[in-house]
């Protein structure tokens, strides 16, 4: 019974971690789907969300309503950041060779990370994130820590909201259409600039929420905290099929579980390498990802 319950515990941990990866992966996949750009700065948006949440919780003390406020503040801050970055750094380069946009994306990532390091009231040192004390949820022989349950529930709610937005609203239709064919969409009267901005906004909102949730589960914030989860979330997006929203969700969960199980049962220093390994395997075996579709190039 003991090994079984440990396994389930690890599974829950994996799903919890995975849902955060999924939230971040959604931003990557939506942006890549719409402008074919790997937004390297996306992981750092998550970091900014975490810091926003940190300051709110520090100001008002950890409690459930403050926590919800923290998530909202994080989402708003990240939304603004995402839109600004798109407007200032990516839009001028929309028609430039891809290499140039990629380099700019890297540069934005570096600016965000290092800006946080030099700003006096933030600084490079890690700070501990105020934690909520939540009761554990006991189901049979499994005891799910309250915070992990919160992460899972929060992520699921956000993903459902996203699903409704993308599939049942006019904005969502515009997003799907622009990601399919930018020029045709603009000819159809869709405001492409606005649609792209909205996509970045939504992705950043999810990342912001993900940042607060991540920091609650692994209670520490530092300017570099977005780097690794960002990379892994991208791997998750590729795993699920870059450009596919359900793919990002599936990929995130799988990656979270894989990483947690590796940490639990294997050499923990190499847990980070697992994501990289998964990336290589997927690129070798099914580069379009689990749920992705092959895009045909018009010649």
């Amino acid at each position, binding site marked *: 019974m003991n090994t079984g319950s440990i396994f389930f515990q690890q599974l829950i941990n994996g799903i919890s971690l995975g849902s955060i990866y999924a939230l971040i992966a959604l931003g990557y996949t939506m942006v890549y789907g719409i402008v074919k750009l*790997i937004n390297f700065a996306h992981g750092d948006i998550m970091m900014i969300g975490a810091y926003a949440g940190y300051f709110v919780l520090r100001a008002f003390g950890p409690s459930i309503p403050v926590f919800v406020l923290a998530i909202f503040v994080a989402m708003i801050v990240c939304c603004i950041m995402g839109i600004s970055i798109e407007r200032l*750094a990516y839009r*001028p*380069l929309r028609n*430039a*060779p*891809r*290499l*140039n946009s*990629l*380099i*700019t994306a*890297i*540069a*934005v*990532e*570096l*600016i965000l*990370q*290092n*800006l946080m*390091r*030099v700003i006096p009231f933030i600084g*490079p040192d890690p700070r501990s994130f105020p934690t909520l004390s939540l009761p554990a949820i006991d189901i049979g022989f499994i005891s799910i820590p309250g915070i992990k349950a919160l992460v899972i529930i929060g992520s699921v709610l956000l993903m459902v909201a996203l699903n409704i937005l993308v599939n049942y609203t006019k904005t969502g239709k515009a997003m799907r259409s622009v990601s399919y064919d930018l020029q045709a969409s603009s000819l159809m009267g869709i405001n492409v600039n606005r649609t792209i901005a909205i996509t970045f906004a939504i992705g950043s909102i999810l990342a912001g929420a993900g940042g607060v949730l991540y920091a609650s589960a692994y209670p520490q914030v530092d300017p570099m905290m977005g780097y690794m989860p960002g*990379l892994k979330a*991208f*791997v998750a997006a*590729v795993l699920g099929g870059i450009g596919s929203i359900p793919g990002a969700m599936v990929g995130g969960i799988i990656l979270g579980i894989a990483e947690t199980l590796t940490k639990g049962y294997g050499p923990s*220093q*190499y847990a*980070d*390498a697992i*994501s*990289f390994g998964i*990336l*290589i395997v997927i*690129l*070798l075996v099914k*580069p379009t990802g689990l749920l992705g579709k092959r895009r045909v*190039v018009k*010649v």
Partner: protein
Amino acid sequence: MKNKTFRNMLIPAIIALIAIIVPTLLIKLAVIDEYTAQIITLGGINAIMALSVNMICGITGQLSLGQAGFMAIGAYSTILLTESAHIPLPLAVILAAIITAIFGFIIGFPTLKLEGDYLAIVTLGFGEIIRVVLVNLKDITGGPNGKQFNTILTFDPTIAYVVIIGALITLIIFLQNFIRSTYGRAILAVREDEIAANSAGVGVFKYKMLGFIVASIVAGIGGALYVCFIGFIKPDQASFNKSIDYLIFVVLGGMGSTTGSVLAAFVLTYLQEFLRILQDYRMLLYPVVLILVMIFRPQGLLGTKEMNFVKTFDKLRGFIAKKIGGEKEDGK
């Protein structure tokens, strides 16, 4: 016809010899002090790394964020080969380059087959993985604190200069010859238009791989020479930040321009000393500069232009001849 070819080779050859011999003498005679010599020689190493980044990003047109990873492989391989396998240093450097090429092949093979920007992410991860592995294999690599490796290059600035600048010039010559050949043209065709290149008989995957492997070999050589010169290597050398440092040289100098990349490497190495004052702000300044260049002058300083020594020489001769001719007229 033969005369012209001979002349085309002679002029750059003389310039190359001057570039090696004169400073060597100046260093030997302590006219150039040891500190300056070190900066110049370090510039040479950075220029070699810039050549590597230029090869994959500028010439092949693929963004790689892991050239520093290859550099680290070259460095640590050199140490392992000389210390554990007792292979003489020059041979170790060559073998280290080959080992780096093998890694380049392993990384490139699954990644370059695909359309899209996967190389950027894969090389980003690769650099970090290398760093993590190097940190964890403490017995072999000395762990996070790095490893000492003193060679004759570490102690003798004259020899260091000759070897490294000599290597730089040799690499420049080989790479230029490579680029101006069927191989180079095929790679450039892939960069310009993959579909057209494919339809003209150029295997896209094959030539992307070729460009990537050549770039990794150059980075491996850079790493080997680096560790021989500096006498020390840390796993951090494989990190993403280092790869960005080298990428900046090429972006500023002109992606695709050998001259530009080398020049930018030397200039920025020199400025590094001043930039040291900025410390953390340096890593803020660099990316801001990157974005500004990308938006306002994406071709960098020189674009894809190369300095043509022969043309410059002829222009100079013409200029001097005019001046002398003019004076003769006045003197009449």
